[in-house]
């Protein structure tokens, strides 16, 4: 196949990717969009295999079969609650692939590079490498393989700074002499190290930002590989992914009222201790409540808003939530869900879980669409959410989350909080909501509580 035809097919593939994203603007067309995107990918791969440069197919076919088996296996097995780490893992694979393609290119043509090609090759190696290890660290934190709290140690910033400088110095050596295998390997090793060190000081609650950012990085790495290989399909696709990752990163940061630099460099837990200590302790007492009392409150409610958080995912309580909501709906209660942008561990995490439990997507409301309605609501049921419903964000300038947009749940007549234990949230911040006059605390595993609640209502 001639190079011109191949390039035209690449253009077709890029167009299909864009149409695929366009169709994601509504849940009705989204599935079709994903199929179109798949067709684009298939066409691009087919055209590449028909290129005159391809001489042997044994390794290619072997690699594709192995990759397909592994990819399909993990995609089918993964639980919806584990989607954030799944996305992290796949991101890592993409980053590693870009870095390896860069490495292969260095080996195959070690003398004839123009300066521009060399720069883009180095960037695909560096960005791809740190995306790989950074994603693996994010995966390990979300999966609970390593502690999700921020890991900090003395001289952390200095060590990171030295590694960045060393990477830059080695890159300069490669730029001067692109046959210097030792320097190339050094760049790769330091990039891998940088990915690990950049993610360990970031806590579990900040992972939504990191997952988005790594998504953007994997796109950038692909674009750089595209520049190095003069392949427009890679350039366009990489920039689409980069734009998507950066857009979501910004939404996540805005939803926490923090800058990206603050998320990346400020080891959240450490900042909290001092700030929380300076803030005033909440006044009032926490009021526990029994299942039967909650059942009575719910039975007498006309309107209910459910606020899910990471605790719902951790307790796998999405199905129990929907069953309770369905029953109340049949009894004439108006049930809606309020979703905070950073509820859960990645953008849209709660929406996917509730969709899995067969909750209709027109019952799910974004924060800005439902926040004015809390004042006119009888009951709010907070299931495993904490910081996103903390009124201190609005009232207490000493609170570390002061300024973060939160759901105005305290304005409802009664707030029922389902919570596993008395422990404070991820950020280690006291929640004033729990001490308010109209708040009742229902302690215990969220799924068990919801099931008991439903049984009590049916009696």
């Amino acid at each position, binding site marked *: 196949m001639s190079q011109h035809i191949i390039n035209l097919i690449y253009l077709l593939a890029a167009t299909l990717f864009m149409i695929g*994203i366009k169709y994601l603007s509504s849940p009705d067309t989204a599935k079709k969009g994903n199929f179109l995107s798949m067709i684009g990918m298939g066409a691009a*791969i087919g055209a590449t295999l028909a290129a005159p440069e391809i001489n042997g197919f044994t390794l*290619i076919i072997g690699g594709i079969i192995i990759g397909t088996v592994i990819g399909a296996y993990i995609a089918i097995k993964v639980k919806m609650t584990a989607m954030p780490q799944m996305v992290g893992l796949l991101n890592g694979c993409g980053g*590693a692939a870009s870095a390896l*393609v860069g490495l292969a290119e260095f080996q195959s043509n070690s003398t004839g590079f123009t300066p521009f090609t060399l720069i883009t090759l180095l960037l695909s190696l560096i960005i791809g490498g740190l995306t790989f290890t950074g994603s693996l660290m994010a995966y390990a934190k979300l999966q609970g393989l390593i502690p999700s709290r921020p890991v900090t140690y003395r001289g952390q910033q200095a060590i990171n700074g030295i590694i960045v400088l060393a990477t830059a110095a080695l890159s300069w050596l490669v730029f001067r002499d692109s046959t210097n295998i030792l320097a190339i390997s050094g760049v790769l090793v330091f990039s891998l190290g940088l990915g690990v060190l950049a993610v360990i000081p970031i806590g579990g609650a900040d992972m939504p930002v990191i997952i988005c950012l790594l998504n953007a990085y994997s796109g950038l790495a692909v674009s750089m590989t595209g520049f190095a290989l003069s392949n427009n399909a890679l350039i366009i696709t990489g920039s689409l992914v*980069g734009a998507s990752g950066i*857009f979501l990163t910004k939404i996540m940061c805005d939803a926490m009222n923090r800058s990206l630099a603050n998320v990346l460099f400020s080891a959240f837990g450490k900042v909290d201790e001092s700030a929380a200590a300076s803030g005033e302790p909440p006044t009032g007492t926490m009021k526990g409540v029994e299942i039967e009392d909650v059942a009575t409150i719910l039975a007498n409610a006309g309107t209910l808003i459910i606020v899910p958080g990471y605790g719902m995912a951790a307790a796998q309580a999405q199905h129990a939530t929907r069953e309770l909501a369905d029953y109340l709906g049949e009894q004439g209660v108006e049930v809606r869900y309020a979703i905070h942008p950073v509820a859960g561990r990645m*953008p849209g995490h709660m929406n996917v879980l509730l969709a899995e439990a067969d909750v209709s997507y027109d019952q799910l409301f974004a924060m800005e669409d439902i926040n004015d309605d809390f004042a006119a609501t009888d009951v709010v049921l907070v299931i495993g959410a904490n910081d996103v419903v903390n009124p201190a964000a609005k009232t207490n300038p000493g609170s570390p989350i002061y300024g973060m947009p939160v759901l105005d749940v305290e304005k409802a007549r009664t707030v029922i909080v389902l919570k596993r234990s008395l422990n404070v949230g991820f950020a280690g911040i006291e929640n004033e909501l729990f001490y308010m006059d109209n708040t009742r605390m229902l302690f215990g595993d969220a799924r068990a509580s919801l099931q008991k609640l439903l049984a009590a209502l049916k009696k």
Partner: protein
Amino acid sequence: MDTGTIIIGLTIFVLACFAGAELIAKVPPTLHTPLMSGSNAISGIAILGALLATGHPESFNSISVIGFLAVILATINVVGGYLVTHRMLQMFKK
């Protein structure tokens, strides 16, 4: 690579960034997770580079090994990404 090619490449890059930003801003929050996994899948397009590296050399050498690993990883990215996206989108019902 001559300067003309570089400039065309940069032009494509900048335009695609803006086009991408426009398209993505229209995706509703409820579909943000499928957006991530779907864009994840297309970033597996790096597989094209991996295929060229693996199929290129006449004889088996270190490039073949690196390319082979890249093909496996990029395929996991593509297949896994599209499949989880499909699984999620199937669940969104009215």
